[in-house]
């Protein structure tokens, strides 16, 4: 069998890559993709613990399903924001949108 540790390592690596994407990318949509990677890492973690600790209860599954809903809501509003920003600035590069920057 696969040890639980392996899942945790993969999800930690995925989370770190997502974090790197969020911090380093210019394009706002790419930043959102980094966030998606992080949410997926979290979901792998949740389900791995569900499988190894409490597979007979549905708590882990319910948690993961609700993470789906949150991710979808976040993407919907985030992308709508980018469209609104693009209309105003003709760009979605995060470093060019600096009206509030001092």
């Amino acid at each position, binding site marked *: 069998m696969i040890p639980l540790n392996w899942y945790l390592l993969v999800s930690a690596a995925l989370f770190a890559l997502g974090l790197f994407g969020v911090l380093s990318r210019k394009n706002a949509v790419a930043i959102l993709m980094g966030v998606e990677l992080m949410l997926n890492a979290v979901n792998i973690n949740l389900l791995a613990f569900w499988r190894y600790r409490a597979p007979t209860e549905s708590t882990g599954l319910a948690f993961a*399903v609700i993470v*789906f*809903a949150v991710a*979808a809501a976040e*993407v*919907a509003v985030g*992308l*709508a924001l980018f*469209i609104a920003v693009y209309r105003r600035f003709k760009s979605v590069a995060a470093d060019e949108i600096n009206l509030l920057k001092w």
Partner: protein
Amino acid sequence: MNAWIYIAIFIFLSLFFPALLAVAGWFLGPRRPNPIKEDTYECGLETVGETWVQFKIQYYLFALVFLVFDVELVFLYPWAVAYHKLPLYAVGEGVLFIALLAAALIYAWRKGALEWS
């Protein structure tokens, strides 16, 4: 787990078959490339510059409503599977859920987000 092995094999095969067709076409067909043949097709006109397309916001709105529906359906499927074991009030909760979904649809409708202008 057995089912997943079968499905994995099937998905692999269903990628393999069209790939095989494409490879067969690549090797059996002639290959005489020239710049005009490989140019982008534009009803005979020469293409100017890069592909430069601006889309309507409608496409985003359609996909958005679809996304909301898709996620809600993920909630509704387990509910439907468990349906025969549920008491009446739980069915009512499902109906409330569907009503909220309908409210989302009605909002998008009233706002004109579903209009193809």
